[in-house]
């Protein structure tokens, strides 16, 4: 009886682990797309209304889904509290995206944007934001391919891997 219970636990944990990893692959394209929309909105705030960055970040945050909104709200609040953009941006990145579906490559794009945001003319800012959006676009495509390839793989791997472990231990 104990053996059966142990096997069920292994099966449950293995499948769960597989589902979690598969979930990260499945969520990444959506998260990246949300970021692209946010950057597009930020570009509009900067180029058309020259809204100061602290206010622009908060305005973007008001109109977005949960995780991206939280990131922009934290960055905007940090900037309003007397940090430089780079500090506020970095702090928000650590707080909101350290444990997320985003890959290190995606975070590097955002981090690079943090170095240049707010410190040049409107035209320049627009170019930097567009570059970041294009880079994110490439990552979206890559993330979609990876999702198609790995979501099923990880789900099956979690289930089958735990079955294999059970047979080995039986």
């Amino acid at each position: 009886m104990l053996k059966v219970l142990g096997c069920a636990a292994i099966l449950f944990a293995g499948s769960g682990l597989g589902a979690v990893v598969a979930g990260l692959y499945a969520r990444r394209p959506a998260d990246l797309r949300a970021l692209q929309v946010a950057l597009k909105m930020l570009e509009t705030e900067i180029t058309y209304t020259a809204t100061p960055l602290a206010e622009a970040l908060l305005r973007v945050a008001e109109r977005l889904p949960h995780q991206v909104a939280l990131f922009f709200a934290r960055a905007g609040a940090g900037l309003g509290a007397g940090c430089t953009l780079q500090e506020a941006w970095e702090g928000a990145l650590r707080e909101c995206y350290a444990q997320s579906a985003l890959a290190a490559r995606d975070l590097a794009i955002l981090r690079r944007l943090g170095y240049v945001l707010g410190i040049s003319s409107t035209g320049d800012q627009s170019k930097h934001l567009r570059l970041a959006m294009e880079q994110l676009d490439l990552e979206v495509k890559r993330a979609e391919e990876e999702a198609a390839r790995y979501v099923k793989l990880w789900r099956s791997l979690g289930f089958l891997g735990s079955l294999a472990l059970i047979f080995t231990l039986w």
Partner: protein
Amino acid sequence: MGTASLFRMLPSGRPDPPPDPVAEVLHVLPPHLRSLVATLPPAVLGQLEEIRLRQDRPLALGLVQGDAFLSPAGCLVGDPEQAYRVTAPDMERTIQLVTGSSLYALEEELRNGFITLPGGHRVGLTGKAVVEGGRVRTLKHIGSINIRVSREVPGLATPLLPHLIDRRHRTVYHTLIFSPPRCGKTTLLRDLIRQVSNGVPELELPGQRVGVVDERSELAGCYRGIPQRDVGARTDVLDGCPKAEGMTMLLRSMAPQVIATDEIGRAEDVAALEEVFHAGVRVLVTVHGSSLRELASRPALQHLFSLKVIQRFVLLGRSRGVGTVEEIWDGQTLSPLGVRAC
């Protein structure tokens, strides 16, 4: 005056907290420079007029009695060699804090060479000018930053006011206040606006509707259109608006009895003033200059002099502290009124 004599003049160890205007400007300094300045005795902070950051050069403070440098230990020193040297990251960080990391939103201000902070404090900038089509488009590689502390001094205009009141019409004379920089023109004009707007019963001056064109947000220190400085109960402020256009707008929209503006000097300002004179509205204006002769020789002001409309010229100086009235002239006869004791 040397720094040592400056120290002797300052009372030491007063318990009052740093005055608010200084606290307002300290926010734009990097934390380590902020704490260097904040540790100065309150008496020194009370006399702080300017903080000057020049990259790779000593950190300088402008005080009422003269300039001094700040050492890495936070002491005033006279020798530039002992002073804290401002680094490139200090400059970058200060620029970011001054602009709220939104340089793109301040392109017009950069073109003019200064940015106004909340509270009306002015930050002057110099660097490499980017010229496009013969006009300055913006500044880059900022090399010097001058942070000027703006203070309200209620009552500064009180000794001057009796000489500016037109008792027959129960209003103020057309007045032009002039002085070299850092003599308190803006502070005096602000107090003058407040008193004229509220009215001065002792001088039988009823409160006037005052329109202020505050192109650089220094007079009223508006935040989102609301004056943060006391400019009186009957004062309407057109914030951030070019002076010439603003005066015309005020005439049309707010039916002012008095129009006040700071630092006129371009031909279009004088043309707009002429329109104001014709509308029967009194003006209170300031201009940079150190003598009447010098003012009269400036091309844009020559026309203003030829109109013979200004009724009082007031020269400010620092002979008995910032905002000292050095002389007042009658605008019609250009003879001094002999009121040096103001």
